[in-house]
């Protein structure tokens, strides 16, 4: 049923969460406009929809598929699972899936659901917040707990309307986010959504990572490819990725363990995951966001430090 991709073999899923009016739909539209050249499926409305709209973007022509579900009830049916099966069964399955969760969804739950579905794997949870309304919503009698859950479950936080909101509101929202989700990067939603590599992660399913930013540097992020000098134990790789300096929000790619196994490594925000993969070229894409100068400086320095790092001093046998 599931498509056989090189590498991890599973289609990565990014979950876009956020309460009503936070700016999710704007972000999705921006992402679709910027996502030309990759096969990206967008599922709107995570759960329970009788019909799920999916926009499938490939190069310049967009197709919309609608999956009508003959589901019986919430206990028996699962529309999200059905929609994912539908995507996996397409003649050309998507390379990446973005799920725009409903405003009342608890993202941790949908992340487990989609990430655990056969043929799919969770890439990241991104939560959008509107700086003008975040504090009031996070304290609301009915949805305060939900809004805080959505922030706490995020790997990446996106501030929408950052250009329109008053600076004091943006600063206040940042402080609130930092308190609820310490260590999670806070990105500008408009910029991140215009950069699929940043929001959805780089495409690394091929034998070679695709060339990233393209001819001109992207306004929102910078990236570099780091080729590990030799085999690395999974636990060591986990430490390496976790220790990447602040502007680097994402890392994804393949490495080989001392036992000769290929592994997929990725970092999204503060979360690092290492999973077994089919043989693939060894290379890790690093992506940094933030002010252009900071990120352009950070990447070469990080790569130089990585190249100089000791890899041999860990126990080769402690593969995860």
């Amino acid at each position: 049923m599931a498509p056989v991709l090189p590498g991890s073999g599973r289609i990565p899923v990014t979950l876009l969460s956020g309460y009503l009016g936070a700016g999710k739909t704007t972000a999705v539209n921006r992402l679709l406009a910027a996502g030309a050249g990759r096969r990206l499926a967008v599922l709107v409305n995570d759960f329970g929809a009788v019909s799920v709209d999916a926009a499938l973007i490939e190069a310049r022509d967009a197709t919309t598929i609608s999956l009508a579900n003959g589901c019986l009830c919430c206990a028996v049916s699962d529309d999200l699972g059905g929609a994912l099966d539908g995507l996996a069964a397409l003649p050309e399955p998507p390379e990446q899936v973005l799920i725009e969760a409903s405003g009342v969804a608890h993202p941790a739950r949908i992340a487990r659901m989609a990430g655990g579905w056969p043929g799919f794997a969770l890439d990241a949870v991104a939560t959008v917040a509107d700086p003008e309304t975040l504090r009031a919503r996070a304290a609301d009698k009915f949805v305060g707990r939900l809004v805080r859950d959505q922030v706490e479950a995020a790997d990446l936080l996106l501030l929408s309307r950052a250009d329109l909101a008053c600076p004091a509101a943006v600063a206040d929202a940042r402080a609130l986010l930092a308190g609820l989700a310490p260590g999670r990067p806070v990105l500008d939603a408009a910029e991140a959504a215009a950069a699929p590599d940043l929001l959805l992660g780089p495409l690394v399913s091929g034998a070679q990572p695709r060339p990233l930013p393209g001819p001109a540097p992207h306004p929102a992020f910078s990236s570099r490819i780091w080729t590990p000098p030799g085999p690395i134990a999974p636990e060591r790789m986990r430490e390496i990725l976790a220790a990447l300096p602040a502007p680097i929000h994402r890392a994804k790619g393949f490495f080989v363990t001392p036992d000769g196994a290929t592994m997929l490594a990725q970092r999204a925000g503060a979360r690092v995951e290492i999973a077994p993969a089919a043989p693939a070229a060894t290379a890790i894409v690093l992506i940094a966001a933030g002010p252009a100068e900071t990120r352009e400086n950070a990447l070469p320095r990080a790569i130089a430090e990585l190249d100089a790092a000791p890899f041999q001093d860990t126990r080769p046998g402690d593969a995860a």
Partner: protein
Amino acid sequence: MTDPSQITVFTARRIRTMNRSNPVATAVAVRDGRILEVGTPETLRPWLDAHPHTVDDRFRDAVLMPGFIDPHLHPTLAAILLPCHFITALEWRLPNRVSPPVTSQEAYMARLTEIEAGLADPAEPLITWGYHRIWHGAVTREMLNAVSSERPIVLWQRSFHEVVANDAAIDWMGLDRADLDRHPQVEPSTGRFFETGLSLAMRGMNPHLLAPQRFSGGLELVKQAIHWGGHTTIGELAYPLADDAGEWAALKAALDGDDVPFRTHFVPRGALRGAFDAQGADLARIDGYAARNTHRLRFGNGVKLFTDGGFFAELMQVQEPGFIDGHHGEWMMAPEAFERVARDLWHAGKRIHVHCTGDLGVELALDVLERLQFARPRFNHRFTIEHFGLSTPEQVRRIRDLGALVSANVYYVHELGEAYWQRSIGHERASSMSRLGALEREGVTTALHSDFTMAPALPLNSAWVAVNRVAESGAVIGAEERMSLDAAMRAITIDAAYVLGMENEIGSIRAGKAADFTVLGEDPWEVDPMALRDIPVLGTVFEGRHFPAAG
């Protein structure tokens, strides 16, 4: 067979009319399915002198009540469940079997083994419902393998949120072991699939559960169960549950025949499943259903909305201090979206039924109702709080002040009262779930429902819980919130009719109403309140026709 246009006089040991002006009678005259008059053979004289009639004394030893009404259940959901083998901690009485209480792991495994041995076809999957860890302990894949290594065996947990499967079932579901190993909510070693992991199991089970033949067989059992409980009217309170075309065809085939001894009042969803962020009510769809109305199947003015999640699944939204384990409930719709849809329905003059299980869900419904009343006051609007699991006494007064009604699932007290006291919300709040005594004290019109299959579709059983508040262990829980017998019997007859907006047609025995009766072996006002649920339901009369209980 008597001429239907002729008058039939049914005499009975006693008739409890549920009409306070004329509460007790011994004879009722019926013509063309309607009541001409209820009273005594003497008071009926003017009718009988003027028209030909027959006297039918087949109920001479029985007690007649108005046909029972369950204003909130789900035939479609029940049709999926009833074909399963029941092994339950509490007794479930069904028309074709009784599932006795099974309260230990030993007894559970013995019963499962017995059911397995009784199945002829070795390939037939054995799906059993009712398993609960509190009573049955941790039943594992290996234990099920020991019952059968060939037959797929699936334990479906009581609240539907977990299954346990043996190896044959995992193969039958078409699942790859690697997918189970990496799933955070599947335990491959024990065969347990829970929460989001359950979706994987359901994907494999659905083709079996929803197979047309099984489903129509299930609806046949639902039909029997509804009759067996003594109902003559039910409310299907969230249509559609499935895809409309298929579900309607199945329900029409099963529930619209001349042999069906009850009518179904449909209350459509105000927003279809998944419309979490709805911009407004879909009035064209809602109003369009009425074109399908038949004699037995009818859409009226009611519309269903939801605030918070399920009570058995502990997904209700609870006010501070919340749940003991710190988990959080769910909203079924964004509160703003709920308000938008409710406002459209309110302005369209609809009767709004709102599923509210936790006290924060009730709070949202009441806050919105208060704003709607401020914007455009309505009287006799019958905004109804459905389920009413947790509430506060202050909310009950507010329900009264805002003119709202309640349709309560009181079975929560019986099945979950002690479990939620111990594990979920503590004693104080658990003992006041389904706060019926307060509703009665404040004079709020209240119906009782089963939400079948959340509770057995047995109105006398619901009334028994309401009047006694006996929890699973036999202890009384929340004695102050007990309902009087009168109020409980009204809650399954005339007050249930009122909640459905059908009080002029059904719900009491008086001149002009449908001749719907429930035939009882004993008088509920004469038995010990603890024996209420044991009163035999001998059958029903639906629109003048007698449908005796089977067997």
